[in-house]
């Protein structure tokens, strides 16, 4: 049973336009949501995160929006650049009880292609 879902396996966007990647989750106990970016032959790289008590976090061209009532988050990239072409993973985290470690649950990823 997937607790984190990315329903779009792929997305194509023109350079300079906005890219919107979506993610849905089912577990209300998650306390942070993260986006990772992955290039071929590399490991995932942290991009941006948002606490469950916030509804928006912005970092340069990247903004993440969280709608808790809908259990939905989205990543906006504006303007999109060809170098943004990668697989984007949505992840949700919750701490292990009594420990300083976190459990991340990932979606399957969305492959973004930014066309020059």
């Amino acid at each position: 049973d997937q607790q984190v879902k990315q329903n779009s396996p792929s997305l194509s966007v023109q350079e300079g336009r906005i890219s919107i990647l979506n993610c849905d989750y089912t577990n209300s106990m998650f306390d942070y949501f993260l986006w990772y970016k992955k290039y071929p032959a590399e490991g995932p790289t942290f991009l941006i995160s948002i606490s469950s008590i916030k509804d928006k976090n912005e970092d340069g061209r990247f903004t993440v929006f969280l709608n808790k009532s809908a259990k939905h988050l989205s990543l906006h990239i504006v303007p999109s650049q060809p170098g943004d072409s990668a697989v984007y993973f949505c992840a949700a985290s919750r701490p292990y009880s009594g420990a300083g470690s976190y459990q991340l649950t990932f979606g399957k990823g969305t492959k973004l292609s930014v066309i020059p």
Partner: protein
Amino acid sequence: DAMVIQNPRYQVTQFGKPVTLSCSQTLNHNVMYWYQQKSSQAPKLLFHYYDKDFNNEADTPDNFQSRRPNTSFCFLDIRSPGLGDAAMYLCATSRDRGTGGEQYFGPGTRLTVT
């Protein structure tokens, strides 16, 4: 540069032949994780170490074991690889009580089972 290193990047093993994958980190993070990722699937957590404390996920097969001899190194042992164990294996680290569970990943080891 501080980083997470995985060796080898590509590993081929025979069905049933034990194999060990290696991960090292220069970030001095308390926590190290091992994930399995199959093609077009989400990375799936196998287990993690918080310092020397081992934490196994409930659905991780017994065929998978791990060792962490010191802060910098962590190993994934697959005792009797099956064809279904062919996957990308990702190592990750995080700080103790780091914000929001941010984890730093290595480049992965792609395991092929013949």
